[in-house]
C-alpha cells in the first residue's frame, strides 16, 4: 500500500559537510524520494574572467591555479596551451615533458581526492579519505620540489616551465610512482570488492550515453558510459602522441562505473609518467627571453585550446587585441557543465543516494563558479 505524503522542500548548503565546497541545492522530497532538484551556484564566483582582462598573460597563470584548486597544474596547462596557440610560441621540449609529468601527477592527485570524498559521502567516515590524502601528500611534496608550492603551483610559463626539476626530484618521483601503484591496489582491494560500495553505487543514477553527449558532459563521466572520447588520444596536445596508454572504458554509466574509471585512470597516468621519464631530453625548459619576452603581445585574434582535464574537457578561449593583456578570457569549465544532468540523475532516486551521486560527478566549486 502506497503512503501518500506532502512534498517538502529542503535547502542543502551552501555550508554543508558533504557538498564539496560551497554548493547549494534546493531539493523537493516526497517521503524519501526526490521529486525535484535545483542547484544554486555562485557562492564562490570570484570574477576571474574579468580580472584576467587587466593582467598580463604571465600573471594570469596565478589566477588559473585558483580556479580548480585540486588540479592547478592541469589548469595551467590548458591556459598555457591557449596562449601558445594564440601567440604562436614554440615550446621547449624539456619544458613540455616536465609539464606533462606535472599534469599527470596532478590528475592522479585529483582522482584520489575524488575517490576519497566519494567514499566519505558513502558514509566511510575518515579512513578511505585519510588513505587517499596520505598519498596525495606525497604528490604535493613532489610539486613542492618542482615549484615550491603545494596547491597553487604557477609552475608553467608560456613556452615551458619556469625552472628545471631539481636533482632529488627524479629518485623521489620514481619512489612516489611505486607508492601510488601500491595505494591504488589497496584501494581496489578494500573498496572495489566491498559489498557496501557495490550495493550503494551499482545501478544508481544511470545515464544513457546519448544524453551525456547531448549535455556536453566529458571526461570520466562520459568514458564510464562507454564512449571512447579522450582528448589526449583523439586530439593530442603537447607530446601525448608520443606516449601510449589505454583508455579506460566502462559501459554501466552508473556511480560505480564513474568511480571505477577514475581509479583505473590513475594507473594509466603512472604509465604515461614512466614513458615521459624515459623520453625526456636535456635542454632548456623555456625559450629565452629574446624569443618569448616577459610581456607577450599576441597578434589580434582568438584561440581556443582544450585539454583532457581531470574532470573533463577543460578549455580556455582567449581573445587578443594586440596588447599585453587578453581582451577576453573564457573558461570552458568542465565541472559546471558536468552538473547539467544533476537533475536527471537525482530525480526519482532516494535521499541516501543524493550525495553519492553528487560525489560521483566530482565537481570543484572553484571551477564551477570561477
Amino acid at each position: 500500500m502506497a503512503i501518500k505524503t506532502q512534498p517538502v522542500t529542503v535547502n542543502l548548503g551552501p555550508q554543508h559537510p558533504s557538498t564539496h565546497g560551497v554548493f547549494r541545492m534546493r531539493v523537493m522530497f516526497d517521503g524519501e524520494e526526490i521529486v525535484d532538484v535545483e542547484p544554486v551556484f555562485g557562492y564562490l564566483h570570484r570574477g576571474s574572467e574579468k580580472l584576467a582582462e587587466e593582467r598580463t598573460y604571465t600573471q594570469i597563470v596565478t589566477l588559473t591555479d585558483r580556479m580548480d584548486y585540486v588540479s592547478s597544474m592541469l589548469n595551467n596547462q590548458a591556459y598555457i596551451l591557449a596562449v601558445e596557440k594564440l601567440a604562436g610560441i614554440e615550446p621547449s621540449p624539456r619544458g613540455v615533458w616536465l609539464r606533462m609529468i606535472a599534469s599527470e601527477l596532478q590528475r592522479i592527485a585529483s582522482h584520489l581526492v575524488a575517490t576519497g570524498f566519494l567514499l566519505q559521502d558513502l558514509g566511510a567516515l575518515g579512513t578511505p579519505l585519510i588513505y587517499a590524502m596520505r598519498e596525495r601528500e606525497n604528490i604535493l611534496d613532489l610539486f613542492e620540489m618542482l615549484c615550491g608550492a603545494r596547491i597553487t603551483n604557477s609552475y608553467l610559463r608560456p613556452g615551458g616551465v619556469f625552472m628545471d626539476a631539481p636533482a632529488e626530484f627524479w629518485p623521489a618521483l620514481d619512489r612516489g610512482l611505486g607508492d601510488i601503484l601500491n595505494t591504488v591496489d589497496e584501494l581496489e582491494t578494500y573498496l572495489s570488492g566491498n559489498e557496501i560500495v557495490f550495493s550503494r553505487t551499482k545501478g544508481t543514477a544511470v545515464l544513457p550515453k546519448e544524453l551525456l553527449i547531448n549535455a556536453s558532459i566529458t571526461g570520466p563521466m562520459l568514458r564510464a558510459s562507454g564512449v571512447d572520447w579522450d582528448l589526449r588520444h583523439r586530439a593530442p596536445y603537447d607530446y601525448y602522441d608520443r606516449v601510449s596508454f589505454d583508455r579506460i572504458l566502462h559501459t554501466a554509466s552508473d556511480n560505480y562505473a564513474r568511480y571505477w574509471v577514475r581509479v583505473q585512470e590513475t594507473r594509466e597516468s603512472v604509465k604515461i609518467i614512466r614513458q615521459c621519464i624515459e623520453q625526456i631530453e636535456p635542454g632548456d625548459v623555456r625559450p629565452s627571453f629574446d624569443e618569448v619576452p616577459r610581456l607577450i603581445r599576441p597578434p589580434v585574434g582568438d584561440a581556443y585550446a582544450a585539454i583532457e582535464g581531470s574532470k573533463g574537457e577543460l578549455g580556455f578561449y582567449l581573445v587578443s587585441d594586440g596588447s599585453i593583456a587578453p581582451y577576453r578570457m573564457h573558461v570552458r569549465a568542465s565541472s559546471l557543465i558536468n552538473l547539467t544532468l544533476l537533475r536527471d540523475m537525482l530525480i526519482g532516486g532516494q535521499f541516501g543516494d543524493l550525495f553519492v551521486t553528487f560525489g560521483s560527478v566530482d565537481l570543484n566549486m572553484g571551477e564551477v563558479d570561477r
Partner: protein
Amino acid sequence: MTGPKLIDPYGTPAGADPRGALQSITLDLDRTEGESVNKMKSTHLEPFPDPVLEVPDDLKRSVIVSSVDYLLNWARKSSVFPLQSGLACCSFEMISAAMARFDLARFGMEAMRASPRQADLLIVAGTLTWKMAVPLRRLYDQMAEPRWVISMGVCATSGGPYYQSYSVVPGVNHIMPVDVYVPGCPPRPDALLYGIMQLHDKIRRYSLNGQAAGRE
C-alpha cells in the same frame, strides 16, 4: 534495482511548467536572497576593529592571577572545536591539516564539527564572496560564545588575488571580528597550525586581561 527515472524537461505535457516542480517557484526565493546580499553589501562597508587583548604590565609578571580562570582557559584552549566551513582553495589545506600527516587532533581539535552550535572556532578558509557572506555571518551568529575566528589565507584576510573583483568581500573582517590572521595563499598546514597556536596563546591571556573569554 532500478535507476532513477530519466526526465526530459522539453518533453513535458502541455500546460505543465517546463522548468519542473521546483524551479518554477524559486525565483521569489532568489529575489529575497538577492535583497539580503545587497543589504549586506551596502551596510558592511567598514571593517570591524581587531579584538586585541591588552594585558597590563603588572599582571604579566604575576604568576597566579586567578587559578579558576587559568584552569578554565586551559580547558578551553585544549578543546577548541573548529567548524567545517571550507570555502575555497584553503579548505583543502585545512583538510590536509586534519588528515594523517599534520593531524589537528594533536591540538585537541579532534573533530571538525558540522554544526555551528557545536563549534568554538570558525576558520574562514578561502575567498568570501558577498553572496556567501550572508550565510557565513549567519553561521557566526549561531555559534555559542566563547567563539573565535581565524582568517586563513589572504583571500579571507583582504580579498587577496581577488581584491579588485566585483563579487569578493575585501577581507572577512568586514563581516565579523577576526582574532588571528594567517597569511599564505593557501598557507601550508603548518602555517595554519602556527595560527592555531597563536590563538591558544590568545585564549590563555584572557585570564590576565580580566576579561571573559571570547567576547569582543
